[in-house]
């Protein structure tokens, strides 16, 4: 599953980079994030709750920032499992920040998510749809956080 979302944020690239660098703060912009903790190896652990009607999926796992550049390119990978249902996801996420002339910055977020196990079998079609809206909400919340 791949998707891309663009949002224009009325702030400089440096200001957005500063929020993204504070991973727990940036993570709070993602709807459903319940906790994020930094580990000794530099990775982050946490959990994400996704609700679809009466159904709930809780993904717990690890996130690693693979690349973080002052030029505004972010790459991160995530592996998370839903222990109750069985199965999980592996996600590669990229964010590219391009500063415009008017002091605003265009952020392009792209994600490639693979589903595994029973989560893929039972929840994939529903989570796919919800994931796209969650990334849109994240971008919007980040815009509010920085503005």
């Amino acid at each position, binding site marked *: 599953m791949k998707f891309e979302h663009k949002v224009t944020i009325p702030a400089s690239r440096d200001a957005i980079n500063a929020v993204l660098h504070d991973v727990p703060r940036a993570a709070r912009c993602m709807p459903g994030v319940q906790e994020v903790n930094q580990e000794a190896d530099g990775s982050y652990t946490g959990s994400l709750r996704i609700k*679809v*009607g*009466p*159904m*709930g999926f809780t993904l717990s796992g690890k996130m690693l920032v693979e690349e973080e550049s002052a030029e505004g390119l972010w790459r991160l990978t995530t592996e998370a499992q839903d222990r*109750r*249902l*069985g199965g999980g996801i592996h996600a590669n996420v990229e964010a590219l920040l391009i500063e415009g002339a008017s002091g605003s910055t265009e952020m392009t977020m792209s994600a490639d998510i693979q589903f595994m196990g*029973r989560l893929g079998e*039972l*929840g994939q*079609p*529903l989570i*796919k*749809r919800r994931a796209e809206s969650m990334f849109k909400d994240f971008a919007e919340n980040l815009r509010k956080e920085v503005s």
Partner: protein
Amino acid sequence: MRDFFFHAPDNLQEALSLLNEHGDDARLMAGGTAMMLMMKQSLLEANHVVSLHKVPGLAYINRDNGTLRIGALTKHRDVETSAEVKATNPLLAEVYSRIATVRIRNVGTVGGGLAHSDPAQDPQPALLALGARVKITSAKGEREVALSDFLVDYYETALEPGEVITELIVPNAPDGAKGVYIKYLPRTADDYPTVGVAAIGVVNGGVCQDVRLGLGALAPTALRATSVEDALKGQQVTAQSVRQAAEAVADLVDPLDDPRGSAEYKRDMSVVFARRALEQALGLS
């Protein structure tokens, strides 16, 4: 499946009290055909299940001034076989007869089906086309909601915490109308459809007097294609006008990829089966 407390209240007031007492921890159960599967698959969890099976007075089919009032605990099978429904609203009997298998229809209830709100359920396209409404009861009183407003998203309805569906109100089709439900399912006959289309048409002197089109399995909820209806109303009914109107369905739908077909395939099939249903309802085939 995780352990849970099972409550079997003797009346609706007691059921409402239990819902209010346990809040998010409680799930209401009518027939339980969908809910028990979801709980066994760990898709749904509840510490308290409040069963309505002992609650009296919610299983009935009454005729009331051009409408049918169907109690929420009426079984699908009872709608399907009711002489009253067959006589006044045969499309309704037809769509309830297409749900899953006879064993499920003998257990599943009208209200439970509405609360489940899977976009691929069989009755919803016809219920939307007929302008059905849902009566909801809570400790605060009663309210009625149009089905089109009741269906909110995948498995989401307008039900608020502490509310129970108590009745489905279905207006009769217009006089002289022909109703059609096409369930396109390439797998087994008891499956959910890949595409479900209900159409109702009234034609007089070759002119479309009224037409309604409901679509299932093609968006986060079943939906009514009012723009397609508007394009046909008052127009001469021809194969070309129907074909042209049906093509607009592709822009209204937003299906999911799933084992019943890709989103692209379902979009293509939505046009084909909307056209066929309209042709039948408007007397072209």
